[in-house]
């Protein structure tokens, strides 16, 4: 038998193991390449238009918004999957995604129907819907925290999130039904629900980057707890994890991240579901590497999806959620197959 002290001397524990360092390097190079390429992808050629510089800037902003929204959704998905110990969990199960969606829709209705599309002085028109989304997510979060017996179990939290999602989705459908005759408003509501980052400007970029980057470090600091939670709540508690506290904070950071994505138009499915799973395959299950990897991978994935939206030869842009679903469904089925095999 090898002596522990000898083993300790032999073993180096670098922050990044070789494979992980290579993985992060590859992700960063891919992001730079796709981001650079995305500036030249689109229906207008930059060198053929007098507005080339502005177009370049708009594409850069749009790409950056897509990146941060994707990063936020994937990080939120990693937190949710870690919290529920389930690779099939998505951040939308907490009800905050549909809450953000409903908040944005309510703001649109308020703007069109009550304010006659006139924005109060001092408020940016383009930021009203995002602010509505953030307010909706925060309210949904407060309802979840108030209703779910967080000290009881993760299942209670899951069921409360499920109920809230159903409630908010019903209210969204009601809003769409009531406003169906106002085509401009109906179109705006549909665009919001289908997801699109087209037209995203500096304000959206500031909001999405602030919420995504601002949540990355505080969420990452729970990597050790999420690692221990892989053994289940009872064992984690026995090992010293304050499970109820971790649950509350994971829900809060998930809500903030989701709000940041939905607020800029990225109310899209599957990113928070499949990206963490894919990154788990590449970087392993330890959350210290998984969370930053999901952040970068999610950003890269949504950036790529947005480029596809722009370059598809159709009369109008394909909604972002359609692209993520087209990619997400086969990947999701693959996850299910893998799980059945391993079971």
């Amino acid at each position, binding site marked *: *038998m*090898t*002596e*522990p*002290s000898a*083993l*300790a001397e032999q*073993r180096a*524990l670098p922050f990044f193991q070789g494979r992980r360092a290579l993985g992060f390097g590859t992700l960063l190079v891919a992001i730079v390449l796709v981001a650079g390429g995305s500036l030249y992808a689109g229906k207008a050629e930059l060198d053929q238009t007098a507005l080339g510089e502005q177009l370049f800037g708009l594409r850069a902003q749009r790409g950056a918004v897509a990146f941060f929204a994707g990063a936020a959704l994937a990080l939120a998905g990693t937190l949710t999957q870690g919290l529920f*110990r389930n690779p099939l969990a998505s951040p939308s199960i907490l009800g905050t995604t549909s809450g953000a969606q409903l908040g944005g829709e309510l703001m649109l209705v308020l703007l069109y129907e009550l304010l006659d599309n006139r924005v109060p002085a001092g408020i940016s028109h383009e930021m009203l819907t995002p602010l509505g989304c953030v307010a909706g997510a925060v309210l949904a979060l407060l309802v979840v925290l108030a209703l779910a017996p967080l000290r009881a179990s993760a299942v209670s939290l899951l069921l409360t999130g499920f109920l809230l999602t159903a409630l908010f989705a019903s209210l969204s459908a009601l809003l769409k039904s009531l406003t169906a005759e106002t085509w401009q408003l109906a179109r705006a509501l549909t665009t919001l629900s289908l997801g699109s980052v087209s037209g995203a400007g500096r304000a959206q970029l500031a909001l999405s980057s602030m919420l995504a980057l601002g949540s990355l470090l505080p969420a990452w600091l729970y990597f*050790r*707890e999420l*690692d*221990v939670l*892989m*053994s*289940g709540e*009872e*064992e984690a*508690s*026995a*090992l*010293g*994890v*304050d499970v109820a506290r971790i649950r509350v904070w994971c829900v809060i950071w998930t809500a903030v991240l989701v709000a940041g994505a939905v607020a800029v138009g990225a109310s899209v499915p599957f990113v928070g579901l499949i990206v963490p799973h894919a990154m788990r395959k590449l970087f*392993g*299950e*330890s959350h210290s590497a998984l969370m930053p990897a999901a952040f970068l991978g999610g950003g890269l994935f949504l950036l790529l999806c947005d480029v596809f939206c722009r370059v598809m030869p159709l009369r109008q842009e394909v909604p972002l959620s359609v692209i993520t679903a087209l990619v997400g469904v086969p990947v999701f089925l693959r996850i299910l197959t893998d799980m059945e095999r*391993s079971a």
Partner: protein
Amino acid sequence: MTSPALIARDLRVQRGSRKVLEGFELTAALGGVYALTGPNGAGKSSALKALAGLLPCSGQLHVAGRELSRLTPRERAREIAYVPQQSLLSSGISVRDVVLQGRYAHDAVWPHKHKHTGPVDLAMQQTDVLALADRPWNQLSGGEQRRVLLARALATEAQIILLDEPTSSLDVAHALQLLLQLRVLAAQGRCIVAVLHDLDQVQRYADRSVLLQRGRTVAAGATRDVITSENIRRVYGVELMPNAALGYRLSDGAP
């Protein structure tokens, strides 16, 4: 044995309207092996989880002279280690990382992996899983997983180790190895409290025992006074046949 490390007085556990444990008492000292035994549904696992602070209960529970309910989760984990009957862990993280989980309670905020290398290696050496250090958890056999879980408990450096049916689903050789390991740990000064189904194991390896039935204590004290013909007949409805069972001991060339 030294002064009591764990004192439970009148512990009661209720699930809904059902009382699963009533009036449970235990005084456990460092250096001893204590068995909780009884038929299915006797409340053994509930008692063990209550002792570990994992199940809400009423009554008095003191660990190393401090009231358990006043300890933070990390403080509690540094005093009491709990080994479940079966872990819910199903991932492919390495054995070393599983054992490292036992060090969680020793990090205030930031994990210091280097600081934990010594205790983790020592725990793995004590349970003979050093050779498995880089193996994925989900590729281990049931017996290997049991040893790794014990290593994780030892890595906490807690003086009190609670084990829920540690020998269930183990073959006879691995069960004996594990029980001997528990005796060694007790001899090194730890307090071992284990739920055991096998009365033969209780007789051979436990210094003191608590015999439970339907949540109530039928007998408690020195094992020879608890595992008696009369108590066994009363609780299980079977006759104890002294020296009738097959006896086992590890052979010299045991794996």
